[in-house]
C-alpha cells in the first residue's frame, strides 16, 4: 500500500490527522475551482466548506483509480453547482443560457468604446453573463463536454455551444489589449463598414 493510499485509508477511518493532510494538499486547487465557479469570495468560502464535507463523506467510494485531486475536483464542481442552485443563482444562469438577451452587454463596439477591459482572465470571466460564465468555466476550465454541461444545467447542447462561443468571443475582446505579446494573429482587426 502506498503512502498516499495509507493516508486515504486513515482518513476513511476518521483519523483527523489524515483528513487534514488531504485537505492541506488539495485545498489550494479545489478551493480555486470553487472560487472560480462562485465568482464571489464570501459565497465561495461557504461553499468550500460544504464541498470538503462532501468530499470526505464520499471518501469511502474513492477507489484510487485516479489521483485523489482529480476525483475530488469532480465532486467540487458538482457540489458547487448544487450549492449555487440552492442560492438560486443557477436558476438565473439556466434562464440566461437559453435567453440570448443576457444581462451583461455583449456589444463589442460598446465594450471597446466604454473602455471595459480586463486585466486578467479571471477578471474578464467575471464580466460575462452568468450563463456564459458557467458554461465557459465548465467547458474550458473544468473539461466538461457540452453533453455533460447540458445535463448538469438542464439546457440543450446547442445552448451550451452557443454560450461557449459567445463567452470566448467576449473574452477575446475584453482581453484584446493583452494581445501585443502574442505573435500569432496579433491585432486581428474587424472593421465595420461605413
Amino acid at each position: 500500500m502506498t503512502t498516499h493510499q495509507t493516508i486515504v485509508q486513515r482518513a476513511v477511518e476518521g483519523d483527523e490527522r489524515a483528513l487534514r493532510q488531504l485537505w492541506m494538499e488539495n485545498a489550494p486547487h479545489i478551493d480555486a475551482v470553487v472560487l472560480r465557479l462562485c465568482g464571489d469570495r464570501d459565497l465561495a468560502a461557504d461553499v468550500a466548506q460544504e464541498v470538503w464535507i462532501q468530499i470526505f463523506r464520499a471518501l469511502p467510494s474513492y477507489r484510487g483509480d485516479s489521483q485523489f485531486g482529480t476525483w475530488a475536483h469532480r465532486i467540487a464542481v458538482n457540489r458547487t453547482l448544487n450549492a449555487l442552485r440552492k442560492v438560486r443563482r443557477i436558476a438565473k444562469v439556466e434562464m440566461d443560457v437559453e435567453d440570448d438577451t443576457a444581462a451583461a452587454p455583449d456589444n463589442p463596439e460598446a465594450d471597446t468604446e466604454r473602455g471595459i477591459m480586463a486585466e486578467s482572465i479571471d477578471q474578464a470571466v467575471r464580466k460575462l453573463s452568468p450563463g456564459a460564465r458557467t458554461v465557459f468555466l465548465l467547458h474550458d476550465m473544468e473539461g466538461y463536454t457540452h453533453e455533460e454541461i447540458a445535463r448538469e444545467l438542464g439546457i440543450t447542447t446547442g445552448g451550451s455551444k452557443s454560450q461557449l462561443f459567445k463567452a470566448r468571443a467576449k473574452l477575446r475582446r475584453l482581453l484584446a489589449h493583452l494581445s501585443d505579446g502574442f505573435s500569432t494573429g496579433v491585432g486581428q482587426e474587424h472593421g465595420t463598414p461605413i
Partner: protein
Amino acid sequence: MALPFKELPEQALDAMITREQTRIVAPLTEWSTLSLALRQEGLVRDGSGARAQSDYARDYDRGYARDYAAEPERRGGWLRTTGRWTMRLAASAALVGAGVVAGRGMTFGQGLIDQIQVAVSDSVGHRAAIHVGGKPFSSPADARRTLLRAQTDYQRAAAFLAATDSGPRIAGEPDVYRDRLAGLDEMTAASLGALKNAPQDPLLNQYYLSAAAAREATIQQLGNALPVGATMVRF
C-alpha cells in the same frame, strides 16, 4: 463610423486558460472550522485529533509522532496567543528560502548554515532582514529568478536523492527527517495563514509552494530512511 476593435488570438486565450487552470488559492476555510463541521457529521473519529502517544509510538519510532499528537493545540496556541505570528512567518519564510538554497546540504553541512545569517528585527516594524553569503543580487527580479531556479533544483535533487541515494546512513537520520517534517508543517501552515490575508501575493505563494515541495521531498526521504520492515503510516 464605428471604431475598429481588436481581439485576443484564440491561441492566446487558450494559453491564458491553461495558466488559469493551474492557479491555486489559499484555502477558503480554516481547518478548525472544517474540523468542527466534520465532527458534527461524524466523519472524524473522536480522539483522533489528540491521538494517544502510545498509538503514535507504535506506528512510528518516536519523535515525530509525539510532535503530531500535540500539534493541533500547539499550532492553534502558537498563532493565537503570541500575536506575533507574522514575525514567526518571516523567520519561517527565511528558513524556507535558506532551505531551498541549501537543499539537503543544509541539514548535514554546518558550513552552509554558517553562511546563512537570518536576522529578525523585532524593533523595526517586524521586518525580517536576510543576508545570504555569495554574490549579491542585482535586482528583485534577479533574486526571484534565483529563488525559482533554486526551488526547482531543490525539488529535482531531493527527488533524485530520495530515489537513488544508497550512501552510508547518518546516525539518527529518520529523526532528522521527522524534525524537518514537523518544521515544514509549521511553515506550510504559517504561509497558508499569511496567504489568507494576501492571496495574490507572489512572494507568499512562493514560500508556500517551497514549503510544500520541501515537505513532499522530506516525506520521500523519511520513507527511504526508515529501517527495513518499518512502514510509515503517519506523517
